[in-house]
């Protein structure tokens, strides 16, 4: 559906019909002292030619390094067809058109997206997406509090492997509503939760990330059953690519996770600084009334033909007003369109081979890197496509030396998780060839041999 803005004539006709002199008159209920004439720090408008030049210059500063950096956003091959289709006029809009009689194609795309995401996560219902993985944890926390009304303490317990950025964002979103976040202790040998878990008054929800932020695989069945035994909800935070190989959240423990969320970027959205990415969310059927965001349903029209429409709208702000499940509505429609096309193109077997190849590449990388003197694995145990390493010296100078060789060597965990010491998180997806991986191993070997060992 094309987006056609109003012409000046359209605007004039509409203003005449309602008897308003001009557009500003529509906002005259806003007190004058709250109106801002101009915004500080916002530069003058630029011409298209000037802004294209500026953006090219800035993009060139990124270069095209060999990327072994993950930590929440991952470089995957995006088939050309994905964005070729997603940027067609029928899909390409800053706004997601939900008007059922004019938007059947868009609604069907979202419906198919929901179907695919529920299959990946093993849960019953999906919404039409959220802003990103981090804000999805905030929304899931609020949803858990609404659903699990028996528990009044507002405590959300995070497994040790939850992404620290997700915790910050979720606290910013949910923290103003008497919801607090705390973390289980980490077993420093495994990177996962301790073998003995605390008991006492259960929290309202436990959030478990799989694979964990430092790349380990948590015993999700044990944590899920422990959480449920305490009367807590389980929020699963998952990487969608990994679900081609790992157990779906809907099957964790005896009863399965109640809500699953995650960052959708690995599904066809290219890496870019800060997004746009998208978050996904699925849940058990019985919690659907408390789910935030839009949901597309399949129905039949008056002639008995299948069609698609927004459903369960009574949860939403245009009906529930201040009591809506969230203020989420439009979300990241274009990213979701790309993800739907991506999943449809690669299919079940394709996603499985992408995940398998990523794991194999990471194994080759880790075997090579840990053969270098001064490099060892931080944690034992299985992993997916990301592994934490311990260096015998501070990480930042090593990453700088790798960058000078045009290699993005990974994520410096000592910044976000200082307890872990000189820890470097590395990732190799299916995009890396054996030559790429061997180049990184050789570069790090030279750097570790040539620079003097320094303790942290």
């Amino acid at each position, binding site marked *: 559906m094309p987006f056609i803005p109003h012409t000046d004539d359209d605007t004039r006709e509409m203003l005449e019909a309602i008897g308003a002199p001009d557009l500003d008159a529509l906002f005259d209920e806003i007190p004058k002292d709250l109106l801002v004439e101009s915004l500080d720090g916002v530069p003058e408008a630029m011409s298209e030619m000037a802004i294209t030049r500026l953006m090219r210059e800035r993009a060139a500063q990124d270069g095209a390094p060999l990327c072994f950096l993950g930590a929440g956003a991952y470089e995957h091959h995006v088939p050309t067809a994905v964005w070729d289709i997603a940027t067609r006029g029928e899909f390409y809009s800053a706004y997601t058109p939900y008007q059922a009689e004019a938007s059947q194609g868009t609604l069907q795309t979202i419906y198919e997206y929901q179907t695919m995401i529920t299959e990946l996560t093993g849960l019953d219902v999906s919404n039409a997406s959220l802003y990103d993985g981090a804000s999805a944890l905030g929304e899931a926390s609020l949803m858990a509090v609404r659903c699990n*009304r*028996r528990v009044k303490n507002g405590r959300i317990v995070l497994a040790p492997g939850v992404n620290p950025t997700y915790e910050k964002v979720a606290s910013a979103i949910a923290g103003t509503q008497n919801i607090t976040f705390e973390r289980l202790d980490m077993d420093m040998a495994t990177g996962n939760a301790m073998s003995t878990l605390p008991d006492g008054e259960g929290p309202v929800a436990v959030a478990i990330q799989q694979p964990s932020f430092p790349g380990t695989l948590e015993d999700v069945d044990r944590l899920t059953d422990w959480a449920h035994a305490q009367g807590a909800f389980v929020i699963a935070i998952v990487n969608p690519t990994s679900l081609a190989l790992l157990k779906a959240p809907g099957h964790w423990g005896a009863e399965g996770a109640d809500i699953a969320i995650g960052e959708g970027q690995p599904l066809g959205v290219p890496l870019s600084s800060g997004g746009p990415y998208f978050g996904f969310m699925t849940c058990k059927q019985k919690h659907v*009334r408390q789910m935030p965001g839009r949901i597309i349903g399949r129905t039949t029209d008056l002639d008995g033909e299948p069609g698609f429409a927004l459903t369960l709208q*009574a*949860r939403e702000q245009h*009906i*529930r007003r201040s*009591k809506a499940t969230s203020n989420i509505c439009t979300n990241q429609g274009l990213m979701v369109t790309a993800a739907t096309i991506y999943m449809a193109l690669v299919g079940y077997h394709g996603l499985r081979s992408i995940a398998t190849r990523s794991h194999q590449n990471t194994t080759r990388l880790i075997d090579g890197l840990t053969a270098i003197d001064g490099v060892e694995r931080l944690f034992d145990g299985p992993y997916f496509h990301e592994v934490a390493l311990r260096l015998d010296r501070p990480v930042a100078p090593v990453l700088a030396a790798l960058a000078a060789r045009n290699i993005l060597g990974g994520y410096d965990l000592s910044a976000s998780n200082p307890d872990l010491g000189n820890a470097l998180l590395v990732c190799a997806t299916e995009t890396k060839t054996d030559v790429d991986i061997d180049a990184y191993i050789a570069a790090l070997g030279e750097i570790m041999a040539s620079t003097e060992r320094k303790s942290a």
Partner: protein
Amino acid sequence: MSELPGELLYTKDHEWLRREDDGTVSIGVTDHAQAALGDLVYVELPEVGQDVTEGGDMAVVESVKAASDVYSPIDGIVAAVNDVLADDPETINTEPYDAGWIVKITPSGDIDESALLTPDAYQALLDEE
């Protein structure tokens, strides 16, 4: 013309109250309210044992076109909720004053009947609308 049983008390929010023999007060929405809402698809019920206060929201009735809060007309504690509504919310449409009751409340004190409406007063309210 909507049905209006004479033995009940009413509120201006289109709820009804019935004093039960066990000391609790049953509360539901009126025939007029269910007709205005349309086919109900979901009822969000409070927890048994939950405190409710006069004027505070305690349940939500949702139809295909709207969602509406149900307010407690009295102070008290939720003694029972109508679990039938979880699977058959349309019971409120078919039997608003009987099988369609929503909650039973144990009042925390005497009920101020002057704050409530008699059938005649409620009928007068409907006539105004």
